[in-house]
């Protein structure tokens, strides 16, 4: 029985080379059996759901100011209490999911869209192009990530686009490295030779034949980066360098109630708890995906 699954496993791995759909199917099965990863997936789905249907889920207008009811604790009227202007914390957290996901998606896409081609071209062409690209990547890695984000936002100003850049730039090297080593390990394989013989263009070989093979470690990276992007966005907003008020951003919500910490700690508790849970969810999912794919064969 055990030997059978083992050989089946090997066969599945061998099959993966050109087609990756079977491994995605495997992924879903394994994730479903990993309780922690499943928990992560549930939290992420809830967040996406909240962001999509925010107007339906929110109990109040997230911008509605109600000074007489400011800084309240959780109650039937305000499930998670109110902030220093009497705005409903629950509704602002729900709308904050939009802000968080919006920034995370943009930043992660920016990092991936720049990192993947850089890594692919560096690995495929080799020689000086490889050396130059990789030294630049090393230099980005040689910079503390959060510091770079803070410095970039300080210069570019707040707002969506500069947040994309500030957060996304940091993750370029990790994508480039993953893709580069995958390309290096694949470019001498037979199926690449075969594709070359049939006269496929180098571009098509690189992006349609080789690249799908490093989808697995990329997915792991993507999931972890999502959590990281949300953490950086909330840190920047907490410092007042992200979105301007009254945007419902989790980090900004925390910043706004910090001076009133003595009066109403709940107002700071729930936004922070939300950030932690969402980041935890992306990390758990990333770990689960890593267990599925074992990216150690590609990294470094």
């Amino acid at each position, binding site marked *: 029985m055990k030997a059978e699954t083992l050989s089946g496993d090997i066969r599945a791995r061998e099959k993966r080379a050109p087609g990756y759909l079977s491994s995605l199917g495997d992924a879903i099965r394994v994730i479903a059996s990993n309780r922690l990863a499943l928990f992560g997936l549930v939290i992420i789905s809830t967040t996406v759901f909240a962001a999509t249907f925010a107007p339906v889920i929110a109990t109040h207008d997230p911008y509605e100011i109600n000074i007489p009811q400011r800084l309240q604790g959780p109650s039937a009227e305000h499930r998670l209490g109110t902030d220093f202007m009497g705005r409903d914390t629950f509704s602002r957290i729900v709308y904050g999911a939009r802000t968080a996901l919006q920034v995370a998606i943009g930043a992660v896409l920016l990092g991936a869209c720049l990192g993947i081609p850089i890594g692919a071209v560096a690995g495929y062409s080799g020689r000086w192009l490889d050396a130059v690209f990789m*030294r*630049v990547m*090393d*230099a*980005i890695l*040689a*910079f*503390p*990530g*959060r*510091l*770079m984000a*803070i*410095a*970039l936002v*300080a*210069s*570019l*100003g707040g707002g969506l686009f500069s947040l994309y850049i500030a957060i996304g730039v940091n993750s370029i090297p990790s994508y480039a490295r993953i893709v580069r080593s995958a390309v290096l390990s694949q470019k001498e394989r037979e199926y690449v030779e075969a594709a070359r013989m049939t006269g496929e263009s180098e571009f098509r070989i690189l992006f349609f034949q080789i690249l799908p093979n490093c989808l697995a470690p990329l997915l792991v990276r993507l999931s972890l980066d999502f*959590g990281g992007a949300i*953490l950086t966005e*909330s*840190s920047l907003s*907490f*410092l*007042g*360098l992200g979105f301007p008020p009254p945007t419902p951003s989790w*980090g900004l919500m*925390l910043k706004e109630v*910090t001076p009133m*910490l*003595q009066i109403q*700690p709940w107002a*700071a*508790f729930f*936004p*922070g*708890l939300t*950030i*932690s*849970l969402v*980041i*935890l969810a992306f*990390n*758990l999912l990333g770990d689960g995906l890593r267990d599925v794919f074992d990216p150690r064969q590609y990294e470094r």
Partner: protein
Amino acid sequence: MLARYIFHRLLQLVPVLFLVTVFVFLIVQIIPGDPVLVMLGVDPETGGRYAEEQYTALKGQLGLDQPIYVQYYNWLKRVLSGDLGLSLQSRRPVLDILVERYPATIYLAIVALATGLLIAIPAGLVAAVRQNTAADYAAMGYAMWGVAMPNFWLALMLIVLFSVKLGWLPSIGYASPLESPLKFLQHVFLPAIVLGTDLAASLTRYVRAEMLEQLKQDYIRTARAKGLPPPIIFVKHALRNSLIATVTVVGLQIARLLGGSTIVETVFTWPGVGSLLLEGIYSRDYPIVQGSVLIIAVTYVGINLIVDILYKWLDPRIKLE
């Protein structure tokens, strides 16, 4: 062999430091619009009043009328001779201000590092030795949660608990450890716990994984066969070898510490380089911003260099890339 490695590693530093200086230089260049007006605090849309002489003087100090590579060259030449410019706010040399603020950051980092190791090593050890027990799950739960939790939130919650509710510790402030060590310990406690938790959360996993790896090795079986008591096997044999691999991770984590300490320093009004950076940003004092970023980045690069050499020295089997 080690000397060659150090030489090679120093060579690698050249492009990295070059790009770090380019980045720091560009902080001012990528300010949208006219950086001089931004630094003078003039809103580009509504406009504002400023003295013409002030404008020309600042523009001259920044050398913005020259081609960009000339500007970089001149800037780098000044930086290498220790001239980081004048703070736009206090009109004092940036270097003097950095020298004043740097020690506080280093003290905090050292205490935080010690706190992190004090949590991570026992937690990782126990988790590995008692794998798949409640202790293991607790340690891993702490590790997962600690990585996910934003450190500024932990900081706020600890302030609520220890300063507001219990009144045991001051929430903000600083005292030099050289002048009043006791007061320093009181003030450093909360920020160090926050940064230490951040550090320990990721370290615990590495210590545990490395320990599990070591416990499978033959020399452990030999030690057991010899009849050595388990505590000696775990601590003297397995843990010691696990920590070698952990050194690199500690190095990488110090980076997080330095980047993350910006926020923690700000929350606790700790007078280090991190809070200086933010003060610089808030008051658009770009020479201060550039100086703080430069010093943090150079410290980071330096620590990584030391850690790599240390690692190589601890474990000579590591091959040069």
